[in-house]
């Protein structure tokens, strides 16, 4: 009798919790699928960006670590091999003919070969990579500060965004790209890296050139960079949201 009553109570509790969860989950799922609610949620992004930029000085550096902190394994996420014929040819030639083009709203567009980039002044930084999924890894990156490249090409006053075009395409043939505010290109830790932990970048980590955009989440750090295009609007590029992942619902401002 007593046992039966206890089961009844437990059943009641389970039923109540189940019903409550059903109401919350289905209510939220309906809102998620509605035409209007996600656009309210996405307003948060601008508020967060404004608030975070207000409390962070323009050149505040992401923490730099010591050699002892470097992760034994640096996970490679997202695309780990562009898999195209052209890319395979570059791999076969050890990227000797890889060119980086900087163009768009600039006075003097130009291109650099990988060898030419490696001749330029470089920066080495041991930083933490925070993936949107939640994991973090520490690696030592060496590359060319993007500010140096921009000084060469002289951006026009109406250049607002730098778009990074990449060599990788997904299964549906959509090309990977990313973007950042031109102002963020001048941050001292924003570099085009060609070395990870003292060795030339391998294919999973974005050979031969990948963006390091410290202070923002990992999906902003475009791999296999071929071209930096300066534009005044992101609307006409890709899905119009400023990046491959942004077009799939991730925030363009990835500071949190």
């Amino acid at each position, binding site marked *: 009798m007593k046992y039966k009553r206890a089961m009844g109570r437990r059943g009641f509790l389970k039923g109540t919790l*189940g019903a409550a*969860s*059903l109401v*919350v*989950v289905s209510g*939220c*799922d309906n809102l*998620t699928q509605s035409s209007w609610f*996600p656009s*309210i*949620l*996405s*307003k*948060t*992004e601008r*508020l*967060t960006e404004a608030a*975070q*930029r207000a*409390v*962070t*000085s323009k050149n*505040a*550096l*992401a*923490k730099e*670590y010591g050699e002892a*902190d470097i*992760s*034994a*394994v640096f996970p490679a996420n997202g695309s780990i091999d562009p898999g195209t014929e052209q890319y395979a040819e570059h791999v076969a030639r050890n990227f000797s003919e890889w060119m980086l083009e900087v163009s768009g709203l600039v006075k003097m567009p130009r291109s650099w070969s990988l060898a030419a980039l490696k001749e330029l002044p470089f920066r080495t930084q041991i930083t*933490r990579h*925070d*993936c*949107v*999924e*939640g*994991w*973090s*890894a*520490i690696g030592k990156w060496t590359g060319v500060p993007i500010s140096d490249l921009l000084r060469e090409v002289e951006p026009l006053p109406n250049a607002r965004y730098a778009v990074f075009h990449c060599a990788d395409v997904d299964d549906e043939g959509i090309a990977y790209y990313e973007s950042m505010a031109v102002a963020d290109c001048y941050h001292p830790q924003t570099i085009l890296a060609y070395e990870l932990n003292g060795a030339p970048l391998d294919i999973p980590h974005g050979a031969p050139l990948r963006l390091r955009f*410290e*202070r*923002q*989440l990992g999906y902003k750090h475009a791999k296999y960079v071929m071209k930096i295009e300066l534009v005044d609007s992101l609307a006409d590029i890709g899905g119009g949201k400023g990046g491959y*992942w942004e077009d*799939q*619902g*991730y*925030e363009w401002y990835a*500071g*949190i």
Partner: protein
Amino acid sequence: MKLVLIQPDWRGEHVPISEPPVSVSPELNDQTASTQPSIEQVYRHRLPVRISHWLNVPILIILIMSGLQIFNAHPALYWGESSDRDRVLLTMRSVKSDDGNIRGVTTIFGHQFDTTGVLGYSDGMRRAFPAWATVPSVRWLAMGRQWHLFFAWLFVINGLIFTAYALASRHVARDLAPTRKDLRGIGKSIRDHLVLRHPVGEAAKRYNVLQKLTYAGILFIVAPLIVLTGLAMSPMIDAAFPWLLTILGGRQAARTLHFLACFSFVGFIMIHVLQVVLTGFFNNIRSMVTGWFIVKHRGVGHEV
């Protein structure tokens, strides 16, 4: 039946609480009076507290459930800055067992637990937390983040307004801070709670010492901790305030603390709701909706 009304003080001053009404002596009155307990209405929760409380109900539920969605994208916790394998504290995974079935396995400090059906594997899906516990229910990190960050702002704004009000109105000093006398009675209060003996009469008008410590702990330790550890996971905030990760023990430690603070909230909510039910569901709900709480004073008909 004797009814004593105590009017709310809208200026936010001390709410006067009258002496308990003295039961009328049976010699001077008819016999029916002595068989009934006297009832007093007390204005217990002021409007800003009530609004803030009810706003927190959907806010916290959505924050917890969208947080579990985000956790599912990488269902493991670590200590320190990075998620290197030697730093792992907890994982929730699905594994194929020898008989070909998929099992949900939760590993805490190296100890494995079979959590099939809830954690690691549920409803035929390989996922850490089950679909009924996450917002949205399907695996969708980008949307989970949108929900979470939107409601995180509401939580912070609501919390800041409440804190300002609670300090200015002396709600903290008067109702939440335990007095020395409270603290001396903590042993008795723990014993009373264990046998589910709840305060009645005059003592029921104010929070008991365990209530005060719990509310104060949630409001001034766990809530700030969950906000700070949430912010500490932001690489931009880490650049602005590098000391934040220094005191929290690293970025992955902050993530772990965020998770622990979340489950402190979950535990608090479960005990809180249970106590609301046990100590008079309708009276408690009424007092948090209208402000008015009914206190029964020991009369002959009083039941414990």
